[in-house]
């Protein structure tokens, strides 16, 4: 998809004015956040498991070439095929080539963020294939020609009436007077419509939550069972995965799985966790006849060895989105590309460049909530600061911001002058507020006062109070 991350500020204004979106986002606090907290409280080992998860991924990244080669060998041993893709375009062509071998028409899909990253659906459609998303949320947004607004709940920005609307517009062969006002009616309709697609699909494409080097297995985690039907019923199963998904052993994946569902939906374990190894075996009554894994780099190997390497530990649980005050206020579409929220603010500039996505690492209050809930202990705020630094170094920040920063830096390097100036400014501002204690308007601070009042400084500065206390103590 064409990124609109550069237009983040305009996107945000639209999002805040969108009443439907604001109502839909209101469901988030009662859902994900409360459930995660309860699930974490039930598992005393959760913090230790986070340390372990970080260690597993760090070890894997340090030996990534070894584990990918081992994974490839074991996929091949099990009768599958591994394909390497440097870029989104290479991955798309590889997938198309596999689809062409069986003259595929319908391609069912399990939910995959990598598929969004490489804009696979648009490509397959242009090539005359019919990609069908089967995760309920993905199916809804595919019908609406939208991007996902959340990495595990793609349609979280919608209310049920909007889903009813698009189902009525699409499923025109069903009786027009059928009841469709309730969530269960919508779910049932999608189930029966998509079941037909599962049965006629020639190829099923899923993502992967993990790749297991030891066994050559790929792992998907779902609640609906759509990923399983996607990969079991067609002739060919294609797994599309970015290469940092690999872990060494079944036990390593298991340890991280204990973190994943709890951090994501607050479940103890997702409904379906499925390990797939090669194609169906001789004599098996079902399962795909061919098994392909497309390993995508798309800029990730370049993140290794940099200050953004830690981002490659991400398991796409969405805890950082769910807990982010910015995401909660504006939803995912405002971020303007595939990955929203704090993880997106770090990952997106790596994948599409800081010039396009420089707004995103600036869209943070640095409250630190994201890092505090990240199961893989990724220092997201620190990495957003790194992106801000790079943006500054490359001269991409706006001129007034750069001038302001230079002015501030001049004083910050001269503490005595800084304190004198700060004290003077505080007294002046205090007096200018006219005793009201706040400003509703202030020159150069319109960005702040446009949405809220600026408190006027009162009393003594921190440094003055600090020195006074030290004198008292002495």
């Amino acid at each position: 998809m064409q990124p609109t991350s550069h237009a983040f500020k305009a996107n945000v204004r639209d999002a805040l004015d969108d009443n439907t979106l604001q109502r839909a986002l209101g469901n988030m606090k009662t859902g994900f956040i409360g459930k995660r907290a309860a699930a974490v409280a039930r598992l005393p080992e959760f913090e230790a498991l986070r340390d372990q998860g970080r260690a597993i991924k760090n070890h894997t990244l340090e030996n990534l070439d070894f584990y990918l080669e081992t994974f490839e060998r074991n996929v091949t041993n099990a009768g599958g095929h591994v394909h390497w893709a440097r870029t989104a375009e290479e991955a798309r062509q590889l997938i198309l080539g596999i689809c062409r071998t069986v003259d595929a028409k319908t391609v069912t899909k399990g939910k995959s963020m990598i598929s969004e990253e490489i804009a696979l659906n648009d490509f397959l459609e242009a090539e005359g294939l019919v990609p069908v998303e089967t995760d309920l949320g993905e199916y809804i947004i595919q019908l609406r020609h939208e991007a996902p607004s959340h990495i595990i709940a793609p349609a979280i920005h919608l209310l049920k009436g909007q889903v009813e609307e698009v189902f009525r517009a699409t499923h025109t062969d069903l009786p027009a007077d059928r009841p469709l006002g309730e969530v269960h009616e919508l779910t049932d309709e999608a189930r029966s419509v998509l079941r037909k697609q599962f049965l006629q699909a020639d190829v099923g494409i899923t993502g992967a939550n993990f790749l297991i080097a030891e066994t050559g297995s790929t792992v998907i985690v779902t609640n609906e069972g759509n990923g399983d039907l996607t990969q079991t019923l067609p002739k060919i199963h294609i797994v599309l995965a970015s290469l940092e998904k690999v872990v060494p052993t079944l036990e390593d994946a298991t340890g991280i799985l204990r973190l994943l569902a709890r951090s994501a939906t607050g479940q103890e374990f997702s409904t379906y966790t499925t390990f797939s190894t090669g194609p169906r075996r001789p004599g098996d009554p079902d399962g795909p006849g061919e098994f392909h894994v497309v390993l995508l780099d798309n800029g990730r190997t370049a993140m290794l060895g940099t200050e953004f390497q830690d981002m490659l530990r991400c398991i796409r649980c969405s805890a950082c989105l769910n807990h982010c005050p910015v995401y909660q206020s504006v939803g995912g579409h405002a971020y303007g590309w595939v990955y929203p929220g704090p993880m997106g603010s770090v990952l997106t500039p790596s994948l599409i460049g800081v010039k396009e996505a420089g707004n995103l690492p600036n869209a943070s209050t640095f409250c630190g909530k994201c890092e505090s809930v990240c199961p893989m202990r990724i220092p997201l705020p620190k990495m957003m600061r790194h992106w801000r630094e790079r943006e500054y170094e490359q001269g991409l920040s706006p001129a007034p911001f750069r001038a302001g920063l230079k002015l501030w830096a001049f004083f910050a390097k001269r503490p005595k002058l800084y304190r004198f100036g700060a004290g003077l400014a505080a007294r002046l501002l205090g007096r200018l507020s006219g005793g009201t204690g706040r400003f509703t308007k202030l020159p150069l601070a319109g960005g702040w006062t446009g949405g809220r009042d600026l408190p006027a400084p009162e009393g003594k500065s921190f440094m003055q109070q600090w020195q006074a206390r030290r004198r008292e103590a002495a």
Partner: protein
Amino acid sequence: MDARSQILDSIRKSLKRGPLGEAAAAGPAGRIASHAPGLIPARTTTLDAKGLGDLFVRMAEEVQATVTRVAAPADVPGAVAEYLTSHNLPADLTMAPDPTLDVYPWDDRPLLRIRRGRAQDLDQVSVTGAFAAIAETGTLMLISGNDRPTTLNLMPDTHIVVLRADQVVGPYETAWQRLRAEQAGNAQPGNTMPRTVNFITGPSRTGDIEQRIQLGAHGPRRLHIVLVEGPDAKTA
């Protein structure tokens, strides 16, 4: 340079090293060979067999699976028949050709019409065994094979799983250990894993519309477990 070589090169360049030599590869290779379990939560580690069975049932019921506990294999067909009657479900079953299900006296319930094989689209009810059950989270572990079709776990509206008490383990790691032991005996070289290992925790669900949980998104709407309490469960 081809994509594979270039990606591996790029990894090594970023990590500022060449390919791992024999000595350096010994660490990762050893990790794979030993596949040591990591931290295992204490939730299950102090429980005896009865405690594991109880925890499994509690956790499975928490995620809307239903469980009938029966005392002997002879009681299984009756428990299945009663479940179907009480839910107004048809008596037509599709059952895995799995020989471990043959020990239950299905002929005692002649009203059950049983077909053995993989699932077809309109099948309402499936019956399968399981490889193991994980008490830690109320999770069933099913593996595919010539007589264990994966489709039975996914397509019918109602999935009934017959589980023996000795199949209930504490953590996932114990189930992996059992699977490795079994596969070592009968797997073809290179195929250390079955094609499919399904961990199933409750019936299918979605929260994709307004975060309201609905059961039966694409997989079974109902997951019923018949737990056969063996001597293991009583004496441990």
